[in-house]
C-alpha cells in the first residue's frame, strides 16, 4: 500500500497498464510533454516514449475517433478529454461509433477504449469547466460509465476499464483529486494521506466494473451516491447524527442493482444525490430502479437532492452545489416522513 492522491493513483494505473500491455496508448490535449493539466499523465511520455503517450491537437472528435480506429485494430487506447465540458464535439464519435461498432459489425470488431475526463464543479470553473454530464453517457447502450470517488478505487477501476473489452467513459470528479471533499468549501482541504481510501495497493490490481461499495454502513436510510457526493453524504449523516448507509455506486452502467436493493430493503428509505442537474439526471434512473424493485419496502417516497436545473453558475457556485446542509436537511425530512 502507498498513500496517494487520486491524481497519483490515476497516474499509477496508467503506469501499470502500460507496463503490462504494450497495446495501451495514451493521448489527449497536453497529456504528453506537459503531463496533463491535472498532472494525471505526468511521466508517461518519459517512461514509455512519445509513440505511446503523445499530445493530440485540440480536437476532441479526432481524439475519440482515432481511438476507435486504434481499438478496432487491436490497440488499447486510453484517452483524456481535458475537461468533461469539452467532450461534446466528441459525443458523435462516442455515441455513433465507439458505443455502436460492436453491434453493427455483429461482434466482428469493437472499440475497447477508455475516455477519461475530469468532471464536476467546486473549482469556480463556471459553465464550461464544471459540468457533470454522466447521464449523457449512461443513456447510450454500448457504453460503460464509471465515476470514481477516491484514490483506491480510481486505480483499480481505471486498470479494469483499460482491460475491459467495451468502451468505458471514466469520470474523475476533479474536486476530489486532492482530497475527500465533503462540500465544506470554507474549511481547510483534508488530504488523501489522512483518509483510509488514500491507501492504494501497489502494482497491478483491479476492481470489478459493476460493483458498488458500501461507503458507510447504516440503518436509518440509504443514500445512493457517486463521485464527490459520496463524501458529502457521509459528512451530512455525521453532522445530522443520522445513521445513513451511503452506497458509492462507482459504476453507473453496469449498475449494481443487488447492492441497491439489499440496502434499501434494510433501511426502507432512499435518498438519491448527485451534482448534475435534477431533470433527467442519473438519479431519475435510480429512482425508477428502487421503485420497481423495492416499492413494498419503502416507508417514504424516494427523495432526490441534485444540482438545480440551471447552467453551472459563476456566482453562487456553493448555492448550486448540493452540499452537506441540503443533503442533511433532506435526510431529516426523509426520516420524518
Amino acid at each position, binding site marked *: 500500500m502507498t498513500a496517494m492522491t487520486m491524481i497519483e493513483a490515476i497516474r499509477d494505473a496508467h503506469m501499470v497498464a502500460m507496463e503490462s500491455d504494450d497495446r495501451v496508448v495514451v493521448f489527449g490535449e497536453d497529456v504528453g*510533454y506537459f503531463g496533463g493539466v491535472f498532472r494525471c499523465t505526468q511521466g508517461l511520455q518519459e517512461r514509455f516514449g512519445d509513440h505511446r503517450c503523445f499530445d493530440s491537437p485540440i480536437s476532441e472528435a*479526432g481524439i475519440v475517433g482515432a481511438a476507435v480506429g486504434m481499438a478496432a485494430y487491436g490497440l488499447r487506447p486510453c484517452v483524456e478529454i481535458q475537461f468533461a465540458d469539452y467532450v461534446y464535439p466528441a459525443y458523435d464519435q462516442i455515441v455513433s461509433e465507439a458505443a455502436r461498432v460492436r453491434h453493427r459489425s455483429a461482434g466482428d470488431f469493437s472499440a475497447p477504449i477508455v475516455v477519461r475526463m475530469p468532471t464536476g464543479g467546486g473549482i469556480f470553473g*463556471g*459553465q464550461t469547466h464544471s459540468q457533470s454530464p454522466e447521464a449523457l453517457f449512461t443513456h447510450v447502450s454500448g457504453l460503460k460509465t464509471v465515476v470514481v470517488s477516491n484514490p483506491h478505487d480510481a486505480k483499480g477501476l481505471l486498470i479494469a476499464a483499460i482491460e475491459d473489452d467495451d468502451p468505458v467513459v471514466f469520470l474523475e470528479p476533479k474536486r476530489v483529486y486532492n482530497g475527500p471533499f465533503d462540500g465544506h468549501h470554507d474549511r481547510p482541504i483534508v488530504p488523501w494521506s489522512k483518509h483510509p481510501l488514500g491507501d492504494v495497493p501497489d502494482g497491478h490490481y483491479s476492481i470489478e466494473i459493476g460493483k458498488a461499495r458500501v461507503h458507510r454502513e447504516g440503518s436509518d436510510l440509504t443514500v445512493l451516491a457517486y463521485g464527490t457526493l459520496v463524501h458529502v453524504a457521509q459528512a451530512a449523516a455525521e453532522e445530522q447524527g443520522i445513521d445513513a448507509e451511503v452506497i458509492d455506486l462507482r459504476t453507473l452502467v453496469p449498475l449494481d442493482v443487488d447492492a441497491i436493493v439489499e440496502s434499501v430493503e434494510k433501511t426502507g428509505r432512499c435518498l438519491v444525490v448527485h451534482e448534475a442537474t*435534477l431533470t433527467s439526471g442519473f438519479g431519475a434512473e435510480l429512482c425508477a430502479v428502487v421503485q420497481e424493485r423495492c416499492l413494498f419496502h419503502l416507508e417514504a417516497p424516494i427523495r432526490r437532492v441534485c444540482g*438545480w*436545473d440551471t447552467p453551472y*453558475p*459563476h456566482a453562487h457556485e456553493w448555492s448550486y452545489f448540493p452540499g452537506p446542509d441540503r443533503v442533511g436537511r433532506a435526510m431529516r425530512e426523509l426520516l420524518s416522513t
Partner: protein
Amino acid sequence: MELSTDVLTDMHRRMVRIRLFEEAAGKLAEAAKLPGFLHLYVGQEAVASGVCTALTDQDQITSTHRGHGHLVAKGGEFKPMMAELMGKATGYNKGKGGSMHISNLDVGMLGANGIVGAGAPIAVGAGFGNKLKGNGNVAAAFFGDGSTNIGAFHEAANMACALKLPVLFICENNEYGEFTARDKTMAITDIVDRAAGYGMPGVIVDGMDVVAIHEATIEAKNRAVRGEGPSLIEAKTYRFYNHHGVQNLGLKYRTDDEVAEWKQRDPIFTFEDRMIDAGTATRDDFDGVWAELRADIDEAIQFAEDSPVPDVDQLLVDVYTEMPAGATS
C-alpha cells in the same frame, strides 16, 4: 496607408487599457480576490486593438477563453467588466458569465468562450445576419492557432466562404495551444496556409505591430463589405503570462529566453517608441495616458469590490424565458 493621429492615439489607448485591466486582474487573482479561471491577454494587445479600431460598434466580434482584451478593445468599460470577473450583480452579465463567458451586445461582443473553437461558427451566423439585412457590418472571429485544429473552425471557415459572408477570421498565433507547442500538434508553421483550402485570401501580419494589424483588417473588411467574402488574417504574437493565471503551476513548457525575446517586442512599448521617433507623440503624452487609465482601473476595482453579489434567486433566472414549473431540486 497614412493613419491619422486620432486613430494612432486610439490604438494606443486601447492597448494600454487592455494591459492595465489584465495586470490588475492578475494581481487580484494572485491575492485570491478574483474567483475562477483567468487567461490573460498581455502581450497580444496589438491584435485586438488593431482589429477593433478598424471596426464600428455595430460590427460584431466573437472571442475566446482569453477574451478580456477583445472586449476592452471593442469598447468594454472597466467597471462592469471587473464586476463580472468578480461575479458581482453589476457585471456585464450580472456575474453569471465570469471571465470566460463575458459578453456585451451593446458593443457587438458576442462573448468570450470557455470552449476552444466555439466562437468561429457564431461569427459566421452574425455575418450571415449582416448580409441578409444588408447593413454593411462585418463579423470578426478571434481565435487561436490551436483552435484551427478543431472541427468547428473548419466548418465555420467553409460555410462562411461558401456563402461569401462578411466575416473576418482573425487568428492569434501565439505558438502554444495551452501548454503544448504548435509544432507538436500541426505539421504547418503558418495557419494562413489553411486559407486557400477554403477559398479565401490569407495574410500574415506582425502581431506585435498594431498598425500592420489595423491595415490588414481594413483591407479584409473592405473586401467583406464589397460582398467578396471572408479573409483570414494570421497575427504572429505571444502571450507574456501563462496559459492561465500568472504563474500557473510553475511548470515549464517554454524557455525563459523565448519569453524574454518576445517581451523585447512588447506591442505597446515598441509602438510608443515609434510614435516618439516620428514626432507624433511625446513621452509626456503617453505618461499622461497611462496615469489617467490607471486611475480608471483603480476606480473600477473599487466599484467591483463594493458591488453586491447577485441575489441567489438569480440562479434560476435567465435559464428559460420563464422557468418551467417543477424544474428545481
